[in-house]
């Protein structure tokens, strides 16, 4: 059976084949060997002006360890195929396609001749992790620079070969020809064949202008679709090695529970079972996953269970009590003056429940540790972090650990943390065989790094002319992203009490980044509140926003959304069920409008239509960008309508899809997307922005439909009914 991972070159099956790490010259040579020959053109890059460093500084936590040598990013085969190496991973968001477009475009090679290798710590240049809608807007420039520079070196090689000046040469479809004598032509593969060349380019060639693009900016279908529709695409849990064991690990029934006693005698008596106890880690191993599950069921354990008194209803009071002092994200004017200038004040509190990532693929990792080396196939968004964590857990140097990322079955931030990889590596080291740790759905929920429960308090004011004079905004534990105001309000302050990251004594379980962290909560609160303010001012909610908005990009996306939606001025609640939300995320501007109907008897919200307009600067793959918008809108229905983790005393009530409801086919509204062209702006984020509007656009639509203020997400039927009853 044919097997393949996201790399279109074969996955190395021998885990001991290579463990070089770091993109040193030695590792390029190793990579050549590992990938079955082929040639690499060498370039010695200094640190001064005129190098790639000058064009995209490798600074800060995102870029500091990214190599500046273009060889880290590409390899030209003698067969003229170009392999693009990136430290990012493919989890459905589509960079396997867009990186190939960028590489092909800048190198002048056919799109189909580019292969993409992702997320392999031995083969790929270092990367901080795949999150934050950074792949195209940040890492993309490294790929484009590498391609551009490689093309420049190839031209200088061709100039020598033909004994003509470089400026007489042109590149075309992976070849270089003499413009005065076009029959003089050489392919990239021929130029690199048989040679190892080190060359320093004194002057970097400029990157192409977008107006010259023929590959970037054009819609491309997913290049991994074929292997995904045939079942050939491999995910971490699909990996197999001889003599491997499947592990199941003893888990506590609640967060904060302490193991008191454990009896593994019955498991040990089962055939083929191996029991491992390593400090806190109690695991059963078996040649088959169902055998391991059976063995685990026979383990008897008792736990000391915590009594915290905190549950999904009391959590908000708890959070407010534990809130740290404010970090002020932005402020202007004087809140007291703003209040004095107001004739109408509106003060509201908005709540968000904990939300799970719930990717369809639970975390999984296969690890093999032997001879002072480790190889781990992991479903992760952060292969280089996993490398460091595994090395730390095993007591190995980082460069003795290789992490390979197969296709990842969805992440959404939840696979930024990959504890399963360390578990698999520890067990493999202990038993001397490859070990698979594939979390069950219950484990996936239990160990998720949830989107934090959060509170937003807004106090705002209007003057007699219906203009906003005051915006006093406090967000507790959602985080800063997306809280800043882009409306013109003379007296405002955005105060951030606690971030979305784990903090001691705050959350009853782990929290972490959830697709567009913080922004979903902030935009929900802001846009529902703005809708209520417009209503108090007696103004159309779109006109109200535009009256307070000078930012031209935001006005454009709002107007584009209104145009597609067919927005007509209304005074909310109009009964039409129209909502609006907009925001800035990953430097992308996004606006959404929605139409809902609310069943007054059941409290059920029927989302009929969502229109979303987005200005994301230059777009590498309009097809992929559109699909990300559709995916964001669909996924966002969940946190807006149904998704929340219910719990008490550290015990989760929702641990599978029977009670944790994610969006289904029957929930889908009509979705229309508009990409507002802005090609002169470098590419901005695309994987997250459209999701930030979903809470706000639906909550404001519910208000417009019924006058009900649903002040907590998700807007479950019970909460909608309660809000309807408050309207009377």
């Amino acid at each position, binding site marked *: *059976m044919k097997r393949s991972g996201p790399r279109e070159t074969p996955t190395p099956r021998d885990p001991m084949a290579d463990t070089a790490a770091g993109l040193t010259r030695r590792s390029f040579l190793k990579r050549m060997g590992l990938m079955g020959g082929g040639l690499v053109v060498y370039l010695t890059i200094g640190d001064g002006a005129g190098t790639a460093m000058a064009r995209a500084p490798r600074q800060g936590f995102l870029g500091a360890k990214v190599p500046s040598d273009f060889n880290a990013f590409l390899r030209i085969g003698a067969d003229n195929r170009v392999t693009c190496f990136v430290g990012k991973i493919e*989890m*459905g*968001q*589509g960079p396997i396609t867009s990186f190939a477009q960028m590489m092909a475009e800048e190198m002048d090679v056919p799109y189909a001749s580019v292969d993409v290798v992702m997320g392999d710590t031995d083969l790929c240049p270092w990367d901080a992790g795949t999150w934050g809608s950074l792949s195209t807007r940040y890492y993309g420039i490294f790929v484009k620079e590498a391609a551009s520079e490689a093309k420049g070196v190839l031209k200088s090689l061709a100039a020598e070969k033909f004994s003509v000046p470089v400026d007489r040469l042109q590149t075309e479809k992976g070849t270089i020809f003499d413009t005065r004598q076009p029959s003089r032509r050489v392919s990239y593969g021929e130029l690199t064949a048989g040679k190892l060349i080190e060359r320093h380019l004194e002057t970097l060639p400029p990157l192409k202008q977008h107006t010259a693009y023929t590959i970037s900016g054009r819609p491309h*279908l*997913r290049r*991994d*679709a*074929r*292997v*995904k*529709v*045939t*079942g*050939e*695409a*491999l*995910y971490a*849990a*699909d990996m*197999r090695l001889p003599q491997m064991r*499947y592990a199941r690990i003893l888990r506590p029934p609640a967060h904060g529970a302490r193991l008191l006693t454990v009896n593994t005698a019955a498991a040990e008596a089962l055939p083929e079972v191996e029991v491992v106890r390593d400090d806190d880690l109690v695991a059963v191993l078996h040649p*088959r*996953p*169902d055998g391991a599950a059976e063995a685990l069921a026979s383990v008897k354990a008792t736990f000391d269970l915590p009594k915290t008194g905190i549950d999904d209803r009391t959590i908000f009071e708890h959070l407010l009590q534990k809130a740290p002092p404010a970090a002020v994200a932005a402020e202007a004017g004087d809140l007291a003056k703003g209040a004095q200038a107001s004739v109408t004040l509106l003060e509201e509190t908005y709540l968000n429940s904990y939300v799970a990532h*719930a*990717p*369809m*693929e*639970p975390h999984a990792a296969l690890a093999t540790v032997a001879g002072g080396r480790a190889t781990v196939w992991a479903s992760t968004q952060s292969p280089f972090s996993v490398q460091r964590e595994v090395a730390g857990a095993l007591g190995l140097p980082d460069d003795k650990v290789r992490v390979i990322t197969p*296709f*990842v*079955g*969805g992440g*959404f931030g939840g696979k930024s943390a990959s504890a399963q990889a360390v578990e698999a590596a520890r067990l493999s080291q202990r038993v001397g065989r490859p070990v698979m740790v*594939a979390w*069950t*759905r219950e484990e996936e929920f239990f160990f998720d790094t949830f989107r934090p429960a959060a509170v937003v308090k807004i106090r705002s004011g209007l003057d007699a002319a219906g203009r906003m004079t005051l915006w006093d905004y406090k967000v507790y534990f959602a985080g800063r992203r997306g809280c800043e105001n882009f409306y013109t309000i003379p007296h405002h302050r955005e105060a951030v009490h606690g971030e979305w990251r784990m903090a001691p004594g705050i959350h009853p379980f782990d929290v972490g980044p959830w697709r567009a962290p913080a922004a979903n909560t902030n935009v929900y609160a802001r846009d529902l509140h703005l809708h209520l303010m417009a209503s108090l001012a007696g103004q159309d909610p779109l006109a109200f926003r535009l009256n307070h908005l000078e930012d031209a990009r935001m006005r454009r996306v709002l107007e584009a959304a209104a145009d597609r939606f067919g927005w007509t001025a209304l005074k909310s609640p109009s009964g039409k069920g129209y909502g609006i939300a907009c925001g800035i995320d990953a430097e992308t501007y996004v606006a959404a409008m929605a139409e809902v109907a609310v069943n007054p008897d059941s409290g059920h919200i029927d989302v009929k239509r969502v229109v979303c307009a987005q200005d994301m600067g230059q777009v590498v793959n309009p*097809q992929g960008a559109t*699909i990300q918008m*559709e*995916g*964001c*809108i*669909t*996924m966002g229905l969940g946190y807006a309508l149904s998704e929340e983790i219910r719990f008490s005393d550290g015990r989760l009530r929702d641990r*599978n*899809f*029977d009670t944790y409801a*994610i*969006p*289904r*086919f*029957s929930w*889908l509204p009509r*979705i229309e997307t508009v990409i507002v062209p802005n090609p002169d702006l470098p590419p901005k984020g695309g994987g997250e922005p459209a999701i930030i509007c979903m809470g706000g656009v639906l909550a404001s639509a519910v208000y417009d439909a019924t006058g009900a203020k649903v002040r907590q997400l998700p807007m479950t039927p019970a909460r909608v009914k309660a809000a309807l009853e408050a309207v009377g």
Partner: protein
Amino acid sequence: MGKTLQFTLNGTPVTLEVDAERTLLWVLRTDLALTGAKYGCGEGLCGACTVLVDDEALPACQITIGEVAGREIQTIEGLARNGALHPLQEAFAAVDALQCGFCTPGMILKAYGLLISNPQPSRAEIVAGLDDNLCRCGAHLRIIHAVEIAAAAMKGGRS
């Protein structure tokens, strides 16, 4: 343990020495190395492990291997013939009806089961027919479109 079971797998007869109580999903994935059917929930709640048993789309995590004795199993690995994609596979790829791809094999087989029993489903029937299969990436509208395209291409046949 050690019962001899026979069934048809992707058109080929298979004989296995296996405990009849074992779950079909794990026998497929582990013993038979067919990893296209995915574990997603273990309780028949997500559809990622959907296979066809005598043309009926069922979650392989809810069936024992003993229950399929003498029956015909179809997995995603057997859908393409001689390298040619099935119309459903073609349609999914042609309209990008997938992102991460983890739910895709189960989704395609669920749709195949639907089209075998109802070759020209309405849009509402497609939605109802696929509603138990979960997709987290949000490819739903494209999946519906892909099934419509495939239904038209199959013209009531199986391929």
